[in-house]
């Protein structure tokens, strides 16, 4: 029996549920020597800003138990250079490219959304709201529902492209930021971004990365991400894209069963650039073994039973 691997994320239909995560595949074509992008459901490009960014001083990464910390500092060539030099190369592919973008003010977000929204090579835009709002004393947009609503609404009005909001796990109640993004007109929610983390070189008494704090990714993050995908997909009606520590098909299936319509693979690409193939094959095999005619048929199919208790200890 043939399995229908395609899955709809709002208005766009992906060829399959396996995407590459932003910041882990450069500008897409950087993966070329290692991966055939046309075999993927989609590719989220490195986070872009209007002005571009040199990024943080090295060292920028450190491996931790079950994961890694990165503080790249969102190094990117800037929206206009991206549109001039990178985007044209993407037009010939048969996969969904999603431009990840950010700003430090609502205006910067809006300008980036408007400019990127004109690029035909892009299937959707993904807002990275895990960034400090320099007009609000540097607290991250993503941690407060009100500012999530504000910045999402502003971008929504600035572009017709499908708009995905990438949530931060670092919020007291992620379902609140999720609802704020939905109310502001987001087409989908990506769950989740990295968790703020720190590592110290005790012998040198120095931070492992120059930025002191970086984002935790990898298997260590997975159980947190699955929990958030489960909570958010039940709190909103727009599609959720799952991400965090996905290395294997079983990992991806946890997210799909929890309620994600697609998944993104990030850190795992550093260990094996071709793991998306194995993940996709494993998902197809699972559908066959469990009698699911399509990937969409298994989304959210965890046996749920009783309503979820509150105390988690």
């Amino acid at each position, binding site marked *: 029996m043939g399995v229908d691997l395609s899955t709809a994320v709002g208005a766009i239909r992906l060829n399959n549920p396996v995407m590459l995560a932003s910041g*882990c595949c450069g500008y897409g074509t*950087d993966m070329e020597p290692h991966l055939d992008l046309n075999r993927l459901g989609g590719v989220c490009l490195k986070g872009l800003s209007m002005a571009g960014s040199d990024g943080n001083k090295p060292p920028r990464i450190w491996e931790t138990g079950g994961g890694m910390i990165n503080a790249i500092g969102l190094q990117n060539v800037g929206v206009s250079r991206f549109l001039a030099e990178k985007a044209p190369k993407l037009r010939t592919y048969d996969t969904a490219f999603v431009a990840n973008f950010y700003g430090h003010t609502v205006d910067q977000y809006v300008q980036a959304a408007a400019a990127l929204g004109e690029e035909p090579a892009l299937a959707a835009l993904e807002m990275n709201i895990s960034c400090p709002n320099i007009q609000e004393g540097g607290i991250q947009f993503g941690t407060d529902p009100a500012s999530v609503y504000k910045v999402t609404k502003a971008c929504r009005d600035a572009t017709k492209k499908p708009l995905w909001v990438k949530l931060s796990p670092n919020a007291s109640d992620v379902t609140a930021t999720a609802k704020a993004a939905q109310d502001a007109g987001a087409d989908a929610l990506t769950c989740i971004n990295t968790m703020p983390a720190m590592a110290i070189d005790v012998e040198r008494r120095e931070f492992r990365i120059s930025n002191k704090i970086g984002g935790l990714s990898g298997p260590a993050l997975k159980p947190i991400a699955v929990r958030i995908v489960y909570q958010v997909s039940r709190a909103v009606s727009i599609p959720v894209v799952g991400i965090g520590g996905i290395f294997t098909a079983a990992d991806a299936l946890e997210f799909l069963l929890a309620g994600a319509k697609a998944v993104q693979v990030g850190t795992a690409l550093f260990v094996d650039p071709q793991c998306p193939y194995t993940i996709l094959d494993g998902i197809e095999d699972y559908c066959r073994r469990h009698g699911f005619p399509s990937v969409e048929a298994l989304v959210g199919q965890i046996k749920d039973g009783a309503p979820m208790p509150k105390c988690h200890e």
Partner: protein
Amino acid sequence: MGVKPYVVVSNKRRGPYATLTVRGGVDRSEPGQFYMLRGDWGADPMLPRPLSILGEDTGAGTLRFLLKVVGEGTRRLYDLEPGQKVTGLGPLGKPFPRRARGEGKPAALVGGGVGVPPLVYLAEAFVREGTSFTFFQGARSEADLVCMEELGALGVEPVITTEDGSVGEKGLVTAPLQRALDAGAPAAYACGPEGMLKAVAKMCWGRVPSHLSLEARMGCGYGVCLGCVVPVLRDGARAYERVCQEGPVFDGEVVLWE
């Protein structure tokens, strides 16, 4: 290209160093390139580790590396036994440029510690291509000299300096290098501790090209994570470039030491 499976043929240990030989699919590489290597220990450590190619035999399908234990990843590689599996992604990175000007005079190859292997591989190419060179190896002490067998097999007599004078000239490798430059060495190829690379760049500055193989902590090794950058001077402006992509070999005159 994707990661390829390899089997450990041998892993000769000497103190904290080990010469690791693995067999598997070997795509022709150039001196200065590296592999991202990982054993099939479960999830921890997670990331592969970058190792310079010491040598390869495309016929036999073998790759050789020289590694030193500095942390968990290298310890795991050090502990590998013949028959165990490893995976490798490579060859990666830009090799040493090999058009040494002034063929007459010998070029200077300058290595220290785990910076020696890529230069041994380069020496092999120079021998094959008939490019004359002098090999300089600096070490803290006799115990820290590496790849002496490999150099012997190439018929290369390295100029050795040790900080404690236990063997060769007492002091830093920069002293004999200075003499070589004064004698007209057309270029320097160096890999080793940052202090050494800095000194080599300084000595060659404005005189002869220096080709430095740099190190940086790596996430992916193939250009997508931006974790391995170093600051360089490009078109008159400061910019971050990827050691795994634009490097590991950089022109000594563009590297910014911060």
